[in-house]
């Protein structure tokens, strides 16, 4: 047979070159003929190349197939494997995703929120933090604050001539050539290295350079984040959702900045403050009753002091509420507690979700600490229906460092 017909000379000439637009146009025509459209288009964020969206069309050829999905979503799925392990022994696990209760969550406190995972945070916060830091231009931390000895390791980082653990071949060759040039064995003006008489080189023990073991201490920064929010009745619905959404993004950002060395504590308050064990409870709980912002800051201060946390961690506090407070006198006491906290925090951020300034905000700005210590405390007011972009801008406001360009 004739291969010129089989393998065309110009590449791809054997493909009908349809563009996505043409395909979609034809797909739209199907409706007029009485058939369902068949092409789905997915938008995917391309990593690493800026803010690029890639359009990916997909289609399924529908046929009579055996349904291989399990009868029940919770029933087991089998597959083959090999290696060690007795019958019944667990050999691995993966976290469940998209478990019931997330999303609209109307039954459980009328609050939408995030998914599951570490502290109930969905996907990988590190990856989210990486993406929002890069794509949304959140600042990188210039100073990560206190560093702590994490580990001591022996590494082959030091060098020694004459003896050692591992010959450093490149440096040894350098030394040999230098010595032999000085001795005149290699003519000093050699440019073509293939002419070097390698067989006749003089090898001095002192020219042999080794890598030797040395102790390398590694330091790391650790962060502890206090997330606090008002969970009184007035926060129900959108305000709570906004606070929690923003705090998740802040958490992700910190996880990325501190290379996962981040711990979290969660505090809720109405007239009194209480600590809750996990994120799930933190974003779900609602209570009746009034608001006393002072309660949560004094609680956090007490915890930090009692557990001596300031010694071991870089501490962050992020607070969210709607700005309502029991009264001006109480707001003043809250500001006093905040000032105390400023003695140990790396940053304290306050987000007020409301359409106008409320009593607490007024007291806070009158106190002047916002202006006095802009590197320690930040304040942001966002409206109830702010979109994601506004939330991100808010984060920028809360976490950026002075002198660092966004």
């Amino acid at each position, binding site marked *: *047979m004739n291969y010129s*017909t*089989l*393998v*065309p000379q110009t*590449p*791809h000439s*054997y*493909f*009908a070159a*349809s563009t996505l637009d043409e*395909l979609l146009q*034809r797909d739209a*025509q199907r409706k007029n*003929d*009485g*058939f*369902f459209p068949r*092409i789905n288009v997915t938008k*995917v964020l*391309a990593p690493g190349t800026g803010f690029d969206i*890639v*359009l*990916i*069309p*997909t*289609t399924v*050829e*529908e*046929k*009579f*197939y*055996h*349904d291989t999905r*399990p*009868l*029940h979503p*919770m*029933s*087991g*799925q*089998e*597959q*083959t*494997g*090999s*290696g060690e*392990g*007795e*019958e*019944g*022994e*667990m*050999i*691995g*696990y*993966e*976290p*469940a995703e998209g*478990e019931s209760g997330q999303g609209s969550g109307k039954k459980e406190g009328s609050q939408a929120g995030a998914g599951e995972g570490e502290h109930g945070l969905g996907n990988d916060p590190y990856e989210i933090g990486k993406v929002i830091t890069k794509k949304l231009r959140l600042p990188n931390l210039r100073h990560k604050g206190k560093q702590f000895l994490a580990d001591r390791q022996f590494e082959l980082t030091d060098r020694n001539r004459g003896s050692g653990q591992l010959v450093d071949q490149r440096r040894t060759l350098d030394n040999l050539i230098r010595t032999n040039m000085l001795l005149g064995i290699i003519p000093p003006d050699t440019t073509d290295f293939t002419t070097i008489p390698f067989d006749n080189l003089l090898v001095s023990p002192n020219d042999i350079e080794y890598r030797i073991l040395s102790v390398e201490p590694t330091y790391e920064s650790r962060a502890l984040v206090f997330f606090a929010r008002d969970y009184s009745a007035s926060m129900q619905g959108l305000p709570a959702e906004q606070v929690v959404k923003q705090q998740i993004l802040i958490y992700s950002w910190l996880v990325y900045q501190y290379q996962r060395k981040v711990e979290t504590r969660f505090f809720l308050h109405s007239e009194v403050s209480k600590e809750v064990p996990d994120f799930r409870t933190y974003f779900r709980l609602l209570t009746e009753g009034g608001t006393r912002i002072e309660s949560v800051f004094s609680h956090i201060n007490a915890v930090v002091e009692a557990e001596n946390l300031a010694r071991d961690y870089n501490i962050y506090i992020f607070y969210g509420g709607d700005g309502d407070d029991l009264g001006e006198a109480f707001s003043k006491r809250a500001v006093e507690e905040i000032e105390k906290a400023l003695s140990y925090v790396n940053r304290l951020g306050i987000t007020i979700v409301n359409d106008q300034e409320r009593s607490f905000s007024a007291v806070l700005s009158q106190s002047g600490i916002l202006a006095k210590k802009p590197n320690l405390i930040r304040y942001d007011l966002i409206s109830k229906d702010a979109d994601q972009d506004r939330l991100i801008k808010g984060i920028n406001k809360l976490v950026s460092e002075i002198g660092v360009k966004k």
Partner: protein
Amino acid sequence: MNIIDQHAKKLMERCKDRARESGLRFSDETLEIILKNEEIVRLEAKGFIPTMYDYWVDEVRTLQGIGAYEIFPRRTYGMFEIVTNARPPISYYNVNNPDWLNVMIFYHVLAHIDFFQNNAMFRNTWRDDFAGQALADKRTIAKLRREHGRWLEYTIEFARAIDNLVGFHAELAKSMDRTPEPLPKAGFYFDVFIQGKDLPQSEFFREMELYNRFVSEDSEQGEQRFFALKQAKYPELGALYERYRKEWKQSPSDAIEFIMQNSPFLNKAENEWMKQVIEIVRRTSLYFQPQIKTKIMNEGWASYWHEQLFMQNERISGHEVQFAVNNAQITALNRLGLNPYAVGLRLFQYIEEQADQGRLSHEFKRLRDITARDKYDQNTGNGKQSVFDVREQMDDFLFIHLFLDQDFVDRHKLFVSERRFNPIAKRWEYYVKSRKAEDYKRMVTATLYHPPSVTAEDSNGTLSLHHHFEGQRLVPEYIQSTMVGIAHLWGGTVTLRTYEPTVTTQPSVEMAIVAGAPRVVRVENPQATWQAVRYTANDKKVTKEALTGERELAEVAAWFSEKR
């Protein structure tokens, strides 16, 4: 898209000589082509047949592949090779590899070609060059596209919606039956007539014995005398056989052929072109069937030979470590999941060893004494011949079913694992479910390609399809549009009888702490009852009704009792 250079081609020719010396058999001519990454994406959508007919789904897949490539650029993979079963066989490579790696890959490719050209499942692909056939089909489709526009696309789409129902085995049987003709009278009597009489099995065997006795006593008149006797018992026999002979025609191999032969719509003169299209789709599907059915064997065979031939080749010297790494990347057993290269390779090696020791014999199978079994070695030297026989005669199902035994599972530490939801820890946990060969075989068999068995008949102008119960439902989301497509090709009402489960008990898992570690101690699978249902497609509308007839219940009961 370039043909490999002369130097590499020379290597290939030398590899062919050595492969032949080891017993592999394949055609002299081969074609080796190097592809760029984008060309791989484009050809992938066309099943690596460059001359495949154009269809919009392939174009969507191409765009999908290019998009995916933009997001996750694939590493140029040194061991990339694809072999197509054409005449000559075409093999594709990604880059020009160093010589030693090329030699290793060429051996792998040659074993694939040997498999294509000698395995009995491929019998129907031996006569023609599929790439050439596809080119002719592509031209036909292009011509019809100019004449019929988007209705050509719909015809392809609806034909492809049932192209997994092709009767691969029926076609294979037909090709081996050289002169298709109606059964002789004895065949008719035993295979058709008496089957309808509902006789007990003992009676059936007695009839057979009687027939054999008549024929052996008198080879010329025996059969006549037998039938004279039977004619007296069943007066209708002679007339029925005459009618059978008169009305006999070769039965369609599958539902697609049935529709082509019997659809009033397709058999109108103005729609004859559609049958051409359906035949092309059907032929294409049939071409790919043996490849899907021999994945584990084919990859195992290629890995078996590249390992064996390359280890003997002088080009390995100096590249032993690189070879070991490359080979392990292909043939290592996965901790979880099935690697057809790994299982196929080990099973071929196992068969060779077993045959060499004479362990594939009936005598060994009957041996119960463990020490005697351990020491059993007849030193037959049949190993090589046995693996060649296996590659010639089996498909994945037989390969796994006949040779994978407990010794094999133990030797390679194989197991069936299961994923279970742990509601307390809120995570999916994987645990070792079973190390029994039976379970492992069942699991591997379940992953093999097995399209639903759907037969067709014409009941008074309605096409009625019957999905035979095998303990699985059809994907419910796809039934509607598939039926609308079939109804279009049939030009009238189409019904489908199938079975759907209702879950009656929830799954549950019991865990316990054994020796300080959590263990799964008891697993309850969800129970289901099966309900027969009938879908009816008429004028682009599909309705569903429950069936409660005894025939339907009997089919489910029969399947379960056979399984037990």
